[in-house]
């Protein structure tokens, strides 16, 4: 059985706001293709203030799907629609004191139901382009669709590349065979044969174990001070984008070509984190003109890592 937190179990055994809402004026019906679960969220919105006066759910799904639905209805009650739209799936997971990585999509389904219900209230049509695939890297919760898309978008050709761009495979490394299979498939589409023999040795440095410090070289011709300042500038530039998604990024350290950052809020544990990091790393490399690894590090252990 999954390593569910006590809060998840409590919300599953005693779900809040289960059932239909009398006089509901907003309904969101969504399902998660990745496990067949489905959720109907109903809201009673005050037309004058746009405050959610009541919310209720009906869920066809597993323990964490029911618990996520229950948590969501509790979180949004009393909020205005605009406030409610700021609730991220990470907020739902945090409210439940963490979800196993395989179950994060249950919280995503909750957030999508909320978006769908609010769209319904506002007379809009909600659609979602967020596609989920088979979970490949369980350490960082990266699925096959994201790995495939990243390989195509960046012409990646090795497991190490995939790890650098998505984080997938950077933990326990037991998914490397799966990543190689995806590489083989995607490269074959382009008429390229995946070359396992040319894989670099030694293999990828585990992301959780930063290498010992050595005096920083500045291949970009900048002094170490200028170089770090430049890195800080790039990071400062991307922060507003992340903050808009209820996340944030913080520069922790620079060692050689490794830039250690700490992801917080909605970014930590998000399936998009890897993609985000890839983008920021790309920007850093363009600005500094040297190869840099952007490595997410934990400042302190967080509960979201439970069960990884």
């Amino acid at each position, binding site marked *: 059985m999954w390593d569910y937190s006590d809060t998840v179990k409590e919300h599953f055994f005693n779900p809040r706001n289960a059932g239909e809402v009398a006089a509901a004026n907003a309904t969101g019906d969504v399902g998660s293709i990745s*496990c067949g679960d*489905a959720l*109907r969220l109903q809201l009673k919105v005050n037309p004058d203030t746009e405050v959610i006066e009541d919310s209720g759910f009906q869920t*066809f799904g597993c323990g964490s799907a029911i618990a996520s639905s229950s948590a969501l209805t509790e979180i949004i009650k009393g909020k205005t629609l605009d406030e409610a739209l700021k609730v991220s799936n990470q907020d739902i997971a945090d409210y439940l004191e963490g979800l196993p990585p395989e179950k994060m999509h249950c919280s995503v389904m909750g957030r999508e139901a909320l978006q769908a219900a609010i769209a319904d209230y506002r007379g809009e049509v909600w659609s979602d382009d967020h596609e*989920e695939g088979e979970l490949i890297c369980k350490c960082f919760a990266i699925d096959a669709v994201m790995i495939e898309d990243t390989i195509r978008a960046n012409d990646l050709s090795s497991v190490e590349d995939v790890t650098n761009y998505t984080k997938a495979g950077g933990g326990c490394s037991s998914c490397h065979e799966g990543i190689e299979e995806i590489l083989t498939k995607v490269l074959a589409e382009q008429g390229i044969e995946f070359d396992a023999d040319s894989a670099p040795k030694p293999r990828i440095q585990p992301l959780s174990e930063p290498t010992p410090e050595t005096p920083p070289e500045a291949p970009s011709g900048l002094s170490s001070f200028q170089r770090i300042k430049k890195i800080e500038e790039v990071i400062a530039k991307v922060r507003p984008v992340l903050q808009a998604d209820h996340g944030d990024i913080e520069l922790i350290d620079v060692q050689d070509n490794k830039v250690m950052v700490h992801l917080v809020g909605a970014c930590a544990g998000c399936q998009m984190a890897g993609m985000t990091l890839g983008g920021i790393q790309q920007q850093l490399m363009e600005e500094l003109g040297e190869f840099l690894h952007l490595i997410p590090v934990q400042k302190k252990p967080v509960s979201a890592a439970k069960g990884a």
Partner: protein
Amino acid sequence: MDGIYLDNNATTMVDPEVVSEMLPYFTEQYGNPSSIHQFGNKVGHAIKKARGQIQDLLGAEYDSEIMFTSCGSESDSTAILSAIKAYPKRKEIITTVVEHPAVLELCKHLEKEGYTVHFLDVDSKGRLDLDVYQSLLSPSVAVVSVMWANNETGNLFPVEQMAEMAREANVLFHTDAVQVVGKLPIDLKNSKIDMLSLSGHKLHAPKGIGVLYLKRGTRFRPLLRGGHQEHGRRAGTENAASIVGLGVACELAKKHMAYENSEVKALRDRLQESILDAVPNCFVTGDPENRLPNTLNIAFEYIEGEAILMLLNKDGIAASSGSACMSGSLEPSHVMRAMDIPFTAAHGTVRFSLSRYNTPEDIDKVIEAVPPIMAKLRKLSPYWGDNGPVENPGEAFAPTYA
């Protein structure tokens, strides 16, 4: 331990008699059976005795046909990989879509390595079409691997007949019989089954011990080389204590065979009837007329298996489910999908698998606990109204899938 254990197809309690017979082989007779000194000189005899007990349960002609392995999966891999190495020019394999992953995943892997694998389909009751099977048997087939009983539904395949057909076509036949050994009588000396896998922990022996039965004369290539053990067919120091335990477990299984097929079966049947009577919108999956005596698999429509199991567990009842959420995979059980069970029912399948340790009182408690659990979850389900499924559930609730 308190609680009602109805998950015996997953694994079983080690019989206390098995444990006590095993203990001396940890602390007294711990020598290597290959040694001649006093710490190991009885181990060889104990292993020989166990081999005989297993031979007896399987109805094998010779005790040298019993080859010890570490588990059922190792036996399956050994059998299939041996066959394709022994017949290197034969590039086809026949198996079924409902096999255990130990066979299914290996065959899919071999497919990537260039083998043509014929996965036999099943009908809505989980049955094979033997005409299709017959048409696929040819000199290009290296091995047929078909499970004797399905772990999820308990359904039995006619493997003895299929082995005869394979022999006619001069093709090796392997069966994964981990769910059958100890539950139904087996008579291998009068069958054409060439290889058979069994696993100790499915019949009240410990985990970590398995057997590959290898009919005398079957061409074989070892998976593990480098030792004389098991006549050089499976290197590695013998797991002596577990082998002794498996021997005892086989003897006990034979002793309880009639009980399993009368008393245990009666408990299972009563559980089935009572649940079907008390809970609306549920049905037995597979072929109820043709299955193991201990297994009951019920699909509860419009609710999800993991949620059911969590509530059962709260009432002290252990069972299992074919829901996707149980494994973190994308799909509900491949067995349920193969039988074309609709999504909204496949997710709600629950397997109750009994053993000779279950009592009539256990079953009474389960019969009492199940209906309120299903009612509670259905109250949460968007497909369920006040007194039953909503009208046209597929239309009344048609979520946007993302």
